[in-house]
């Protein structure tokens, strides 16, 4: 493609990305360096249906001038990044000095909200992604091999988990795994333990969320791989068959190298998707056992508290996390690209 054509071709996308991605991210970065001004507090008398009481309130007149002067708030640099709600430098240092080995250090810092969320997020990402890559490929190979007449029906049913809205899907499963729900009850009978509850223990909640994550993501990898399988080099496979290669050998030596770019693509997408795991935590009411960075942002923004700076900081940390996570894959892609050139 000529550079000129390419430029006009990419311009609309570029503009949209600049206005709807770059600018908002810049504003989030700026927000994360600022906090609201200190409130000037006064004591006033409040009366309600239950009587009168002296309470503390914000003096709006006094705070107004400050707000008009610097509407962005107080510049605090990286303070929010290092406070207890985020990287918690002070607490981490303390725990490091107080712990004898790495394991006790990890268990100590897993009590801090940011690290607690990171531990779950990483566990989720690094279990769901490989499992769903493997199962997705398996299903794609299976569907590719079955009778043409059945294919349409099977593909439709295999795609269902992705069609269901994540929040709705997880709420439905939440009731199914309830100790009185069909799955929960079945497990109780199978393991002959009437007190077994998937929702009451942290490890079982994690397993539930991971199983849900895999269930929801498989259709994506399946359909991408299935599309890839339609472009298989027939003559290569035929010559392999003549050479006496079995199905497993054909898969390892021909099919997988052929669809490798697709595997990289699905891995990239899924690492990003799984790192910002959110809906299942809400749907499964799992906040007591598992939190993620996205959940922290949601929690900071909702309700009465509205901690904008904290949410902005968590957002930036999420972006940094995703960049670190994708770096190896991106470097690999870059090298391969250069090499071919």
């Amino acid at each position, binding site marked *: 493609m000529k550079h000129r054509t390419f430029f006009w071709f990419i311009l609309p996308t570029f503009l949209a990305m600049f206005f709807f991605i770059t600018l908002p991210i810049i504003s989030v970065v700026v927000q994360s360096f600022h906090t609201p001004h200190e*409130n000037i507090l006064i*004591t006033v008398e409040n009366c*309600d249906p239950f009587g009168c009481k002296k*309470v503390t*309130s914000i003096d709006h007149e006094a705070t107004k001038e400050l707000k008009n002067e610097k509407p962005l708030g107080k510049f605090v640099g990286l303070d929010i990044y290092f406070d*207890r*709600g985020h990287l918690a430098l002070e607490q981490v240092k303390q725990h490091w000095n107080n712990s004898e080995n790495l394991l006790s250090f990890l268990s100590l810092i897993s009590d801090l*909200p940011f690290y607690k969320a990171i531990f779950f997020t990483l566990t989720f990402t690094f279990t769901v992604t490989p499992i769903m890559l493997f199962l997705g490929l398996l299903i794609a190979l299976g569907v590719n091999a079955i009778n043409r007449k059945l294919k349409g029906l099977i593909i439709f049913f295999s795609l269902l988990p992705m069609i269901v809205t994540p929040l709705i899907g997880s709420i439905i499963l939440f009731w199914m795994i309830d100790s009185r729900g069909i799955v929960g009850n079945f497990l109780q009978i199978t393991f002959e333990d009437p007190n077994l509850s998937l929702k009451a223990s942290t490890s079982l909640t994690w397993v539930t969320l991971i199983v849900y994550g895999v269930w929801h993501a498989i259709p994506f990898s399946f359909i991408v791989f299935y599309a890839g399988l339609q472009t298989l080099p027939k003559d290569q496979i035929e010559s392999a068959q003549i050479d006496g290669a079995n199905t497993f050998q054909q898969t390892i030596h021909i099919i997988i190298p052929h669809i490798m770019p697709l595997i990289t693509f699905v891995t990239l997408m899924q690492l990003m998707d799984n790192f910002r795991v959110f809906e299942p935590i809400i749907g499964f009411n799992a906040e*007591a056992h598992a939190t993620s960075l996205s959940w922290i942002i949601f929690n900071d923004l909702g309700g009465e508290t509205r901690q904008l700076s904290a949410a902005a900081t968590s957002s930036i940390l999420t972006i940094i996390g995703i960049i670190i996570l994708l770096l190896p894959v991106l470097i690999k892609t870059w090298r391969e690209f250069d090499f071919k050139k």
Partner: protein
Amino acid sequence: MKLLLIKVFSILFFLASSSAFACSISARVSIVGNEFPAIQTVGAGAKECKGAKVTANLTADHQKINVAGMSSKPAEYTSAIVANTSIVALLNNDLIRPLDDLVNKHGKGLKKNQLITIDGKIMAVAFMANAQHLVYRKDILKKLNIDVPKTYEEMLAAAKKIRAAGLVKNPVGGAYKAGWNLAQEFNNMFIGYGGSHFKGNSAEPNVNSDAGVKALKMMKSLSEYMNPDFLTHDSNATNAEFRAGNVAIMNMWGSRAATLVDADGVSMEVKNGMDIAGPMTVGGGKTPASTLFWDGWTVAKKISDEEAEATFIAMTNAIRPSILDNEDIRKQAVWLIEGYKPTDAARGVFAAAKMNTTPYPMLPYAGLMHSAIGKEIADFMQGKETADKTLSDIEDAYRASAKEKGFL
């Protein structure tokens, strides 16, 4: 004949004047609020006004949108229906206006105790009260000869007997879902043990105390008699458990008591067996382990005076005393409106008010404390931490967010 004519005319005149008096407004009214039945009634009442457009956005997510919707100029919402918890965010951002002039002009029917004043200025008009109190199965208690619990200690003893008798496996219910609900239960218990969340009039936290430890331990003891999934049960799920006959005693919101067993499929046993009583005390204290709430409406600051006046007229119309002529509406809440006679379902909240239950504090930083408690307390309930560690975690989490918001 002449007399009759005069009579007819005077009646006609009266009708005309009263309908003209009913509710006419000359500027737009736009309401945002929660969505439970009593608030639906208020929204519908405001819509009866003629002369300009009245819209109502009633949703459980009202707290997520009311601040943003009232910050623009002119504000999208001219009125927000709030409680003593959620008014704080509007006050903190200076988004609602004093109503003194409007009350003088249009608020003749309002009772004095409906007017919420802050620093002497009327900032909201309350229309109902709410509190958590005891809801129980009288048939089960009777069968085992247990008196209606007046304290949490008696509740525990009753739970032990009910489980031992094999009547209900997990007899205690409670909205213990991690987050807002669980924090609210802690607040109740903490106040019941005589605790106060802040040091004096400052924003310094004060939960890491003897009362805090006792409150946590009592909650833990209660949870042993609850469904093991209690950390996922909000008040809806807890009510569902009660309806299904899986719960015999629980601390529940008054605003839900009236309609608790009205749903389809509730057995006659549960329907006839359900009863309510006042809130319980704990640890020998006199103050009930509960908190009082009011629900009321406000008028936005960033709107024209005409819109503010129209909003005030429409909202006052929505809570006029004559709405209580309807039996269904009368049952929906503990109304603070003139002429309200308590229904049977209101006994619990009335008992709470009579027992001098502490109102939820209208402090600018109360929401931050509530959120910190909700985040940290689940670890203790799962037995992962000691009470002391959890309480100091709550204070640390609160300090971090209060510092960010400029309170410390």
